[in-house]
């Protein structure tokens, strides 16, 4: 389903020209630096179209590829997508396996796109839960794209915010230990602020490669974060769309960006206060 010729079509043609005209208009106002998406509604899309769930996921993957291209053209620098949650392992094993197969296919396609458009790809999450094959492919892709910084794509896989926070706390503690805090000794009094600060925890987050998102889009008509970027979304415009993810298109993106621009001053003020 995911093929290079489909990607080439998205980049070229009269649709691309019209899109660029639309984005030129949007760029009159402030453009978000970082967009995060919760890609909800793939199974509902499949049910609506009377196709099997896996074809729904394929359509979802294609929608994500479209979004990446749209964001590159618009001038967004960071995109973070919630591909697979640790909670999703509770689904049927066949479904999980099919999603993993789709992930492998997507890694191959992203390898090709990253060379075409200098995209840095980062996988955020507890990657040790993935199969060795996917882990190796993901690590190779991350290493090969480390040098690119025009556009950064973060795929959250085997990810939850609670695991991310816990992981960041652990890393902070180990870092302080390695810095010799343990050797220097410690105050036996109660001091809850001495060693580890918020900035130490934040630099060890899985998604530390990107700044906090400006917009967090959830499709499928739901109004919750589902354990995605709850730490990073303090001053983030939360946008909930009724459309299911595979049907998310350029006009939905334009709508979300316009909504963001309407509230831009408010969010800019809030970020300065942090």
């Amino acid at each position, binding site marked *: 389903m995911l093929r290079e010729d489909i990607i080439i079509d998205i980049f070229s043609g009269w649709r691309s020209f019209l899109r660029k005209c639309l984005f030129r208009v949007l760029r009159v106002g402030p453009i978000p630096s970082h967009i995060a998406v919760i890609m909800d509604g793939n199974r509902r899309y499949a049910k609506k179209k009377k196709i099997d769930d896996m074809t729904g996921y394929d359509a979802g993957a294609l929608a994500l590829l479209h979004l990446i291209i749209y964001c590159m053209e618009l001038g967004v620098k960071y995109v973070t997508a919630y591909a697979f949650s640790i909670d999703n392992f509770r689904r049927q094993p066949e479904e999980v396996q099919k999603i993993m197969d789709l992930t492998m296919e997507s890694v191959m396609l992203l390898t090709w796109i990253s060379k075409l458009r200098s995209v840095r790809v980062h996988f955020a999450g507890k990657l040790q839960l993935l199969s060795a094959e996917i882990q190796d492919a993901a690590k190779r892709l991350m290493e090969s794209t480390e040098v690119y910084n025009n556009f950064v794509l973060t795929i959250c896989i085997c990810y939850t915010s609670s695991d991310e926070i816990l992981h960041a706390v*652990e890393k902070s503690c180990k870092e302080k230990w390695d810095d010799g805090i343990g050797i220097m000794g410690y105050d036996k009094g109660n001091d*809850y602020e001495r060693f580890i600060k918020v900035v*130490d925890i934040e630099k060890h987050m899985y998604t530390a490669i990107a700044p906090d998102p400006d917009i967090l889009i959830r499709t499928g008509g739901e109004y919750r974060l589902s354990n995605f970027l709850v730490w990073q979304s303090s001053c983030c415009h939360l946008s909930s769309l009724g459309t299911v993810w595979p049907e998310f298109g350029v006009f939905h993106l334009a709508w979300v960006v316009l909504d963001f621009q309407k509230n831009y001053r408010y969010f800019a003020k809030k970020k300065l206060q942090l």
Partner: protein
Amino acid sequence: MEFFQDGKVREGSSLSLSLSGPLAMMPYFLWVAIWRYKSLHISKLQYLAIVIESEDCRTSNVIELLQWLADLGVKHVCLYDKEGILKKSKDFILEKFDGATLFQENDVLLDQPLMTLEFASFSDGKEAVAKAANVLFMKYLKSGSISSYQGEQIFTESQMGEALKTVGLCYLSDLLVGGNGPEPDLLLVYGPARCHLGFPAWRIRYTEIQHMGPLKSMKYGSLIKAIYKFTMVQQNYGK
């Protein structure tokens, strides 16, 4: 209604005709709205959080909102604003609003005669997690255990919860071990934009977030509608 007389259309009659349909339907719509919202299953809403933009924090509006919630039967409410203005006005709010007590440590979410109120601010979010991290670090420093762990997970969510309990945020401990504590089911945002403004991240993993607009233009009908929408939601929790 006669709108054609002697072959002539009376002025305004076409307008009357166009309005008569919708106006005639108004009682029906009102009846549907009353019937629908009368069957509000408030018991599904165990814990409600309200995020208010600090610049809009008028205690009179807050007290009126609490009164509406008490009338609806909401038993446990957390009031949050980023700068802690509500926290500072805690005593005043509790004094003016008779129907509430302060949420205490070890309180469980059972039916109580009075509403329990919790007050939170930005310092109860990320900074609290940093403090908890220090508690854990000091604990393992004393035991000398950190150095022996290489790449493995050294803390569990329950330990993180215990650490958060130590810094005075006891409800988070239950949250981390299985969600029995007061993680808000619904979070209402009263402000210019839909944003949780730093509400403690650990507590809103699966919370429904509804944007209600500015506090000064709050409406009872909007509140009921938001709660009704929440009661109709089905969550899969990843499944």
